[in-house]
């Protein structure tokens, strides 16, 4: 079962601090959870985990200068580079957190990365293909879950 509670996810991520890469997808800019854009959660998460952000879609413009390292990347290329040649300006991760992708895209990316890294999907829809994912929930609960994860990351 991929679905986990926010607290468990926070614990899991905290234990892997420094080994995480955050992937921010196009919905990060589109979706706003009652006044706070998803991209702001992605930035906060990256900072708390001391992680770089692989900014896909157009998100690099909103992430640049706000995290320790970021770069414009292409979501579909990331599994390829993880498998064959990781030559990015940040460490090859052990865990990839996906935020801001449709469930379909997250499922495809988690499948493509299976066996290469562990994947964590922070969407409001459970993604069974990921190593860990949030459960399917309402927008309000999603917002609360993201806040809880952030809070428990310290």
């Amino acid at each position, binding site marked *: 079962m991929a679905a986990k509670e926010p607290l468990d996810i926070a614990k899991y991520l905290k234990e892997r601090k420094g080994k995480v890469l955050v992937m921010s997808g196009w919905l990060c800019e589109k979706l706003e959870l009652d006044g706070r854009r998803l991209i702001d959660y992605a930035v906060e998460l990256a900072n708390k985990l001391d992680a770089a952000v692989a900014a896909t*879609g157009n998100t690099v413009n909103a992430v640049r200068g706000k995290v320790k390292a970021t770069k414009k990347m292409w979501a*579909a290329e990331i599994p390829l580079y993880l498998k064959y040649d990781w030559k990015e300006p940040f460490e090859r991760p052990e865990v990839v957190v996906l935020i801001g992708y449709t469930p379909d*895209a997250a499922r495809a990316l988690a499948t493509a990365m299976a066996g290469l890294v562990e994947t964590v999907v922070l969407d409001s829809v459970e993604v*069974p293909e990921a190593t860990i994912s949030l459960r399917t929930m309402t927008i309000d609960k999603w917002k609360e879950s993201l806040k809880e994860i952030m809070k428990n990351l310290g």
Partner: protein
Amino acid sequence: MEGKVVKVGGVEVNLADAVRDPRGVEDIAEDILQEMGERRLRQWDPKLNIFAHASDIAEWDDILLNKYHTIFTSGKKSCEACQQGPCDLSAKNGLCGLDLEAHQAREGLKEACRALARQLTHARDLLNYAIKIYGKEKEIDLGPYEEYPMTNVSMLCGFYPKNLADVERALSYAEAQLAELLYAVNNGNESAKDLVEKTMHAGSLTFLAMEVAETIKMCIFDFYNAGKVEPTEYKDWPKMQTPVGLGVVDTSKPVICFMGNDFLPAWHAVRIIKERGLEDEIEVCGVGAAGHDIPRFYEKAKVVTSATKARLAIRAGIPDVIVVSEMCLPFDVVEEAKKIGAKVIAYGYKADFKGVEDKTELPMEELVKYLEENDAVQVTIPEKAGELAVEIVKKAKEGKKAALLSEAEIKEKAAACKACDSCFNVCPNRLMISRAMKAAKEGNLEKLSEIYDECVFCAKCEHVCPNGLPIIDMIIGASIEKIKNDKYMMRPGRGLISHIEWRDLTFGFVLGGNGPGMVYIIGCGKYPGAEKDVAEIVRYLVDRNCFVAVAGCVAADAAKYFDEEERKYIFEKYLAAGLLRGFVNLGGCTAISHIPPATYKGTMIGSGYTPKANWSQIVDYQYTRLPLVVLIWGAATEEMFTVAMGFARSGVSVVVGPEGFKFKTWLLGNKHDRSKWQMFDGITGRIREVEPCPVHMIIPVETKEEAITMIAKLFHRPLALRDPRLASLEAYNEAHKNFFGEYSDDWHLYVRSEHEIHVMRRMEMLRLLEREHGWVIEGPRVKKARLRDGRLVDMRDYVENYGIQLGRYSTVVPRLVIKEMVGGAVAAPSEEITKMHGVPKE
């Protein structure tokens, strides 16, 4: 195998060496060899894929699949294809030996077979009808400006069909191939690679099926066809005569709306309307494939929307009568039509709706009466379906119900929303419906109306709403003004790109000119954002000197732009011809089949190679030279995945919008792996390192900005000449910098000299080469460049070791290195051949 020996000038070819099994196809093989001629046959050993099975094209497919990695996206780990199953493949192979990767590949093949079956049955219906009416001897004449008729057929079968009997031979071959592919879907333990090759084969066969349909439309039913029109007229042809949008239909008149893939009932309805002089009394419009076909033979036809949004057309109350044939995105049309009291005529054997009876045998009078008393009827003869639509439409109008919800009704219904967000979690575009409901409850419909802009009317939200809210009706009701104002104009589809136009395109994009490349945009209307994004993509590309053509449902949405300053719609803003800065509409979904032939034409004009069962040679040429990219924007059907695989096999890179994350296979190149980016100097056979290009064959992207940037990157080809190289590099750099605020990490890989950097950007880029990549720059010149192995060398060494200068014969196919020069094993080419080709001797 002993084979017949064919003499071509001074060369003798044993057919058994040229064709895997020449029996039964000797005549075709001999024709092709004669067409190739002595000169070619001295240079290369021919390898013909006449009536190709998937494995007959393995020479090329292997090259492609060795270069590009297949990334599978299906998470299914259990196989139930045969009676021995289910087998859990996550830890070990299935009982038949099938491994997980192959299983994932098979998911793709399965999807491709579904698409192929749909296109084959559509083509077969049309062909059978054409044969019934005109006989098998009916000639195929695509006009004087189509020099290479039906090259999707010729590339797989080895001949240009001359009449319907030849077309039938080709279609029967494709049908048999489908059976073979279906066998592979359900049996055996093939490798993932073999199954991907078969999926690509399904793509090539889908083009063939679409081409059969398209040819019948143009030859038999007189659809607009550029092959029959003087090229001097192209720039404003076909005329800007087709209204597009939900607001263009005059609903005060009786409205017949055609949906689905089959235009035949519409063709007969229009014939009757004309015979009876009813053109100004009855509105004829269409949705999806039929919507794009009808304007190609009826100048008063209107296109309402894409196949994806067919439900919107109904819920907005547009049709009085719906004539529906088999659909690429099936939904319960009868149930939907009931909501507005429209009548449904289900045409054909494939348009089977639950509870709808086939009453084809009834005389017209009784048929009309039957439909008056019932919601729907099935009719399998097109003449009858068309006539029935005309007969019933006035009466049907009288029985129509009010379609749109009032503001008060929306408010009341919104109050029932429990904010469970089941809708949000299934919505493909992640639209926050509960937030809009909350606002609507308080009397603010603005948020619902905002949802309208990005809604694809898939009805998934309604399907899961535990409170049964008519979410779509509420979105529509909140957007009445938008619907009324949805009014644009477009050019109807024109069919093929003629070889005459390709000569111009060659000058603009291949031999010189400043066009970065040619883009073909296809798709079904399932957009990740607003539909107007398509027109924005078109404008961006054409304004930067690209040639853009659209086909399929996307064409109507590409029309949705009006230039206030010039007072022009987008289709009249640009030249309607295959030229630099040209923008053309090829037609509906089957018109996608014009795209591979358009690319083959580029090859034929550039090389003179024979496009008959000669896959590797034709495709190698265009893959390495022509800056062509297909963009699939708004993919909704299996056809899109399938044709993407077909395009990749034809050497054309495909960029696909976010729906592409659902494609079962991506084909990605690894730019870091230098061993993948090599080709043969075609004269000496020496292996040369080249740029990583085209770096991907099928890649999904997330935004329109990513799409544009990736298209620009994929224009790069290893054998492009200097000016096109400059144009594509400039397009890539400009897009990357504008959209993402930084240059890419790989642009320098495409630089061979300072002359390939646009003059406006040259000094900036030279500085970057110096600072970030350690090149030595003196003034505006590159003094030393860094090879990919890290060595800093002077420009002479750089050019000698990176990229390829001898464009003419260079190749990625070992067989196509000129045989007389390889390793000196064979005598050098004769003086005569050298003179004829201008072959430079090393």
